[in-house]
């Protein structure tokens, strides 16, 4: 008799496919939040599997801060073409131009928090009732308590103390007009699981994840890439280093690490030996102990 059990990656895959199909069955107008980072690429890949041989039956949505890595935008456009699905773009620049939000000031100013308004506006104007994200519970302590189906009130806010219990595999996505849900199909994956799966499935990811030469500056314990948005301090100096990125966010806040890992095998090997969390290089999480929880409550990804 052959083995009748799944290995851990197959079980995680099956669980994510189940969640994605539940979203499609329970909501009228879902989207995948697509950032061009590996987690949203993974969710998109899993959605392809969930609905095969049909194509993904809902759009991808990108909240564009305007502070992108050019590679990410190219990658996004390619994947949209390949899947034949619609792309919705919410533009932070437009939110600024319309006076909905104001740019942060100061040395470490970012557009990270501004995304919340743009995201919620895009959800409202496109009548989206479920935004599927690539958030994982192992990423950050506030995320450890996140549900697969996570309710947002009509202001887009998360109330972590008043979440719907999720038992077995029964998910309750019922909501009133104006409210929406966030769904997290890869809640139970760790960074290592993501890399092992990307390697196994040979999923295409942006070149930024692989070691490459880049102009960078040392800031807040990581290598921040040079870009048109970078304002140098007096003591700072631009150098060229062989680096890669563990996560992708805005070009202004995503720090790289020095690395020679230029294949998926080498990346997986490198990640397994890592002693810092992947978000350790994200200055948006370093602002305070509850930085993520505070942003999530307001409606962040």
């Amino acid at each position, binding site marked *: 008799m052959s*083995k*009748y*059990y*799944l*290995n*851990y990656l*197959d*079980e*995680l*895959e*099956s*669980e994510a*496919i*189940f969640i994605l*199909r*539940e979203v*499609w*069955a329970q909501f009228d107008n879902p989207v995948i939040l697509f950032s061009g980072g590996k987690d949203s690429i993974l969710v998109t890949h899993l959605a*392809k*599997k*969930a*609905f*095969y*041989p*049909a*194509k993904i039956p809902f759009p991808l949505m990108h909240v564009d801060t305007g502070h992108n890595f050019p590679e990410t935008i190219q990658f996004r456009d390619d994947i949209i073409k390949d899947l034949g699905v619609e792309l919705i773009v919410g533009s932070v620049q437009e939110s600024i131009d319309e006076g909905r939000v104001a740019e942060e000031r100061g040395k470490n100013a970012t557009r990270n928090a501004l995304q919340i308004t743009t995201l919620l506006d895009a959800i409202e104007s496109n009548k989206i009732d479920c935004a599927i994200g690539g958030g994982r*519970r*192992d990423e950050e*302590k*506030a995320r*450890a*308590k996140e549900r697969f189906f996570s309710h947002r009130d009509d202001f887009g806010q998360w109330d*972590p*103390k008043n*979440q*719907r*219990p*999720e*038992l*077995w*595999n*029964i998910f*309750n996505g*019922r*909501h*009133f007009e104006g409210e929406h849900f966030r769904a997290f199909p890869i*809640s*139970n994956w*760790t960074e*290592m*699981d993501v890399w*092992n799966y990307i390697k196994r499935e040979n999923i295409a990811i942006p070149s930024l994840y692989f070691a490459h030469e880049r102009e960078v500056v040392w800031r807040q314990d990581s290598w921040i890439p040079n870009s048109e948005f970078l304002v140098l301090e007096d003591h700072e100096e631009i150098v060229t280093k062989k680096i890669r990125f563990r996560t992708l966010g805005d070009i202004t806040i995503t720090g790289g690490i020095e690395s020679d890992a230029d294949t998926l095998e080498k990346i997986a090997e490198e990640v397994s030996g*890592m*002693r*810092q*969390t992947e978000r*350790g290089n994200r200055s948006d999480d370093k602002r305070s*102990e*509850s930085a993520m*929880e505070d942003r999530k409550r307001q409606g962040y990804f």
Partner: protein
Amino acid sequence: MLDNNQLLRFTTAGSVDDGKSTLIGRLLYDSKSIFEDQLEAIENTSKKKGHEGVDLALFTDGLRDEREQGITIDVAYRYFTTPKRKFIIADTPGHIQYTRNMVTGASTANAAIILVDARHGVIEQTRRHSFIASLLQIPHVIVCVNKMDLVDFSEEAYNKVINQFEEFSSKMLVRDVRFIPISALLGDNVVNRSENMDWYQGAPLLHTLETMHISSDINKVDARFPVQTVLRPQNDTHRDYRGYAGRVASGILRVGDEVTVMPSGFTSVIKSIDTLDKSLNEAYAPMSVSITLEDDIDISRGDMIVRSNNKPEALQDIEVMLCWLHNDSAKPRAKYSIRHTSNEQKAMIKEVVYKINIETLDRNTENKDLRMNDIAKVKIRTTKPLMIDSYRDNKTTGSIILIDDATNETVAAGMIKY
């Protein structure tokens, strides 16, 4: 990790003093799953609070309110991996007012860790946690007799706890109970074998979790396939394709199997079992696949495909062991929406047969109000039949939730024919 490594989900329940957080911190720390920046953050907090050394318990504090109050309120999920398995911990609070969180954490667990303080032995909380593990039919229970360092690593103290536990647990339905003497604080028998307890011949906790046999816990007999959605690509390569998408709840389905669609009762034969990667000859739990049938039958979400020679019962009157999850108490004879697999119907609680006093485990037939954290045997009537198995045989087709239509909240969860 090897290709055949499995995923094991376990739950822990505990309150501030019994060392639960320390145990989890220890498992994560000794299996090298805590990263340097996380450790640094804990070190800083430990110093601020004036603790000596690193307080591993701080690692499991999540939300700001919990950090401020120093307690776990909700279920938090933790992850760690060893060369043998991937683990998901459902870390739940242990006090009686968080029974619903314990039930939630227990619902998906392969195993439960129950912590007993070696100094105090089996207490009310131990009984309650064991009862929940038994109620939710967690297949494996590991009783960790903790704080052995505070009883001089005494075998006698350990045996006393075992005897106490076995005395009360004989009434419960747990198939596999194991005992391990540990010190979460010092690390004895957690990841590494204790050097202080030569008299203990068994394996340390982590080794037990890594090697415990779990693949036979899945029901492989009763083939059940609840349909989530129908896939109709209508593209050039799959013009007439009509696939029923779902996850196998239990049993094994094979191409060529004669199947019945519930509740309509139509029969057909499985034509193909498809995934993006390849078409399969068979699918088993918990695989997500798309199934096509030889005949064109009307099937939609909420239907269930089963093997014709082994069908679930279609019932409108069901007995359920219910855990009330919500602040709003149950309204007498009020209607709720009931969810069972992908099926949703209306339902009414016709009768509360008895409530269980979860401190004494006695049945209470006098007070029948259902309030938050109550566990009660109830009779439910649904508007249309549900295709059910008993929870003991099949967790997926034997479980339900109730939703309040006025608030959309999940108010109760139940186990059928308990």
